[in-house]
């Protein structure tokens, strides 16, 4: 992590990467492709897009890492990895990797790194990615910058990983000096989804896991899939409507849901609403909730505290409705309505309903 200790920053700033000959042989940018239960987490493709830029800047190859039990899931993941920009895929396929387990995945990933020596390794900052990254980095004794929001290559070819700290009040750029690979985890929805190039293809390197089930201490007894959770799409929704404390009463949250329904949008809220029990924790947007990146974000009765802001800044367009013209949310929203959410929301719902049905009729 490297906590921001600004006082010490200047002296650190002078420190230069002094790579040993051994680490100088580390090359290429790797992206861990997170396959769970046959599904690839979209963050992996977001990272593939970002990894492509880094690899091009460095003039090296971009590789995906796919682990799992051999089968459709892995095959599809590998094919898609090429289409999102991978030049090459390293893959370990073994029945032991059917489900994620820290032991097996850490062993596989560390071995791949030690054998094929990437200079940069990116993972999604998901539960799985963070669980794995910490173990791998500790085993390799290398640096790991968690939860990044921006990546860049410096003049001296090192990776500058920028991440929010202190809940988004500050940003810091972190480097891994004398060790390779440079590892980073990146939050889902922070990087844009790249365009897919159908039919694009690349090389493949197969590697064995070399473990027996008896030697793995942790066993999976069961997997209980979430009952088709209604919130599953919040982070990836194109349109999100959210409410905050300004709604006044739990009953009023219906106004947010109504607008969301008319727009076919997802809904969410600020943290206090979760704490008050108005909405489920999975609907919280912000630093300790979901990061979203919709085309349109409508925030009603939300003040725009920094912890909320960091979760919504990636939205293409933000519309804020707030009674207070000085509310901080107007500092980063694109459009604003100074007004009472309790009257504006129903009016908007009605206006959109009219518009969408009229246009439909006209077609």
């Amino acid at each position, binding site marked *: *992590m490297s*906590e*921001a*200790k*600004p*006082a010490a920053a200047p002296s*650190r*700033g002078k*420190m230069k990467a002094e790579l040993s000959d051994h680490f100088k042989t580390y090359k290429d940018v790797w992206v861990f492709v*997170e396959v*769970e239960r046959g599904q690839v987490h979209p963050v992996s493709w977001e990272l593939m897009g970002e990894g492509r830029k880094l690899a091009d800047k460095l003039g090296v190859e971009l590789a995906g890492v796919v682990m799992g039990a051999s089968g459709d899931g892995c095959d599809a993941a590998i094919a898609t990895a090429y289409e999102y920009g991978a030049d090459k895929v390293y893959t370990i396929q073994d029945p032991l990797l059917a489900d*994620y387990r820290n032991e097996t995945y850490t062993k596989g990933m560390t071995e791949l790194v030690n054998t094929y020596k990437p200079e940069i390794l990116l993972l999604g900052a998901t*539960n*799985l990615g963070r*669980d794995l*990254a*910490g*173990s791998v*980095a500790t085993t390799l004794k290398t640096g*790991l910058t*968690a*939860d990044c929001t921006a990546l860049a290559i410096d003049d001296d070819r090192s990776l500058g990983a920028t991440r*929010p*700290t202190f809940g988004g*009040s*500050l*940003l*810091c750029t*972190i480097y891994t000096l004398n*060790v390779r690979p440079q590892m980073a985890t990146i939050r889902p929805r922070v990087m844009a989804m790249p365009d897919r190039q159908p039919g694009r293809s690349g090389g493949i390197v197969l590697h064995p896991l070399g473990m027996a089930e008896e030697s793995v*201490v*942790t066993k*999976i*007894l*069961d997997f*209980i*899939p*979430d009952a088709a959770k209604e919130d599953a799409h919040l982070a990836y929704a*194109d*349109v999100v409507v959210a409410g905050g404390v300004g709604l006044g009463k739990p009953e009023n949250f219906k106004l947010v849901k109504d607008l969301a329904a008319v*727009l076919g949008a997802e809904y969410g809220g600020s943290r206090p609403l979760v704490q008050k029990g108005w909405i489920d*924790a999975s609907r919280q947007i912000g*630093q*300790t909730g979901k990061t979203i990146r919709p*085309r*349109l974000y409508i925030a009603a009765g939300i003040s725009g505290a920094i912890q909320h802001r960091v979760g919504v800044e990636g939205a*293409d367009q933000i519309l804020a409705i707030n009674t207070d013209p000085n509310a901080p949310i*107007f*500092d*980063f929203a*694109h*459009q604003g*309505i100074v007004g009472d959410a309790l009257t504006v929301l129903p009016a*908007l719902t*009605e*206006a959109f309903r009219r*518009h*969408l049905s009229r*246009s*439909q009729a006209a077609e």
Partner: protein
Amino acid sequence: MHIVVCIKQVPDSAQIRVHPVTNTIMRQGVPTIINPYDLYSLEEALRLRDQFNGKVTVLTMGPPMADQALRKALSIGADAAVLLSDRFFAGSDTLATSFALSSAIAKLSETDPVDMVFCGKQTIDGDTAQVGPGIAKRLELNQLTYVEKIRAVDLGARKITVERRAEGGVQVLTTALPCLVTMLEHTNTVRRGTMADMLRAARTEITVWNAAAAGIADIALCGLKGSPTVVKKVFAPQPRKEKAKMIEAAEGGDIASATVAALFAADGRLEETLFRQTGA
């Protein structure tokens, strides 16, 4: 049963201020709290302690004032507290932090073998969620992160079964002790100690260890020296140049229609998106 809970004292991030000129954190007057995620782990540890008649030691690495966080943890019910504090630890990143903490846990184990280590899911200042896995790896503890529920602990067979949050579902895992657990938030409610707990907490001496006392021989693995990452730049987020454009109702029109028009004007593909997702 001996359980160690790693807690961190953090600034209450809602109240953090950044110095407008120097871009440094102004700590003056900023209250500190126990990292909120750590409390779920502490509570879970206390429940196991109560069940098995064991002992909970809270451990933190930080400046001398971090003893306040330990005091707080004691008053919630922890039995013992260790503060790891040494100027050599300054500037530690996750790798160096997990090294120091794991050394201290190993030291604690010498007198009272540690069966479980609990960490918070992540901190609200560092926010990395890496220290827990780092400790687990160094001590070769079986790692159980993002746990929603501890189903059972069998001390005789030295086994633990938990429900762990994965993408799209819950994994039911079983592994052997010793292990490291990080609890997911909102999985339990932190208790309030009794008056007897409070008095005991107020009387408990906090053990303060420097690097040597924690059994750390190689200082080069600590602090700045032991941290492969360095912070090169700290800066405030760029304020957006323009403030929001305030929408006002057009002459004779209403604000809602004006808003719909403004949103569509700003994003030419929005209308199409809406049609697609409403199936219109």
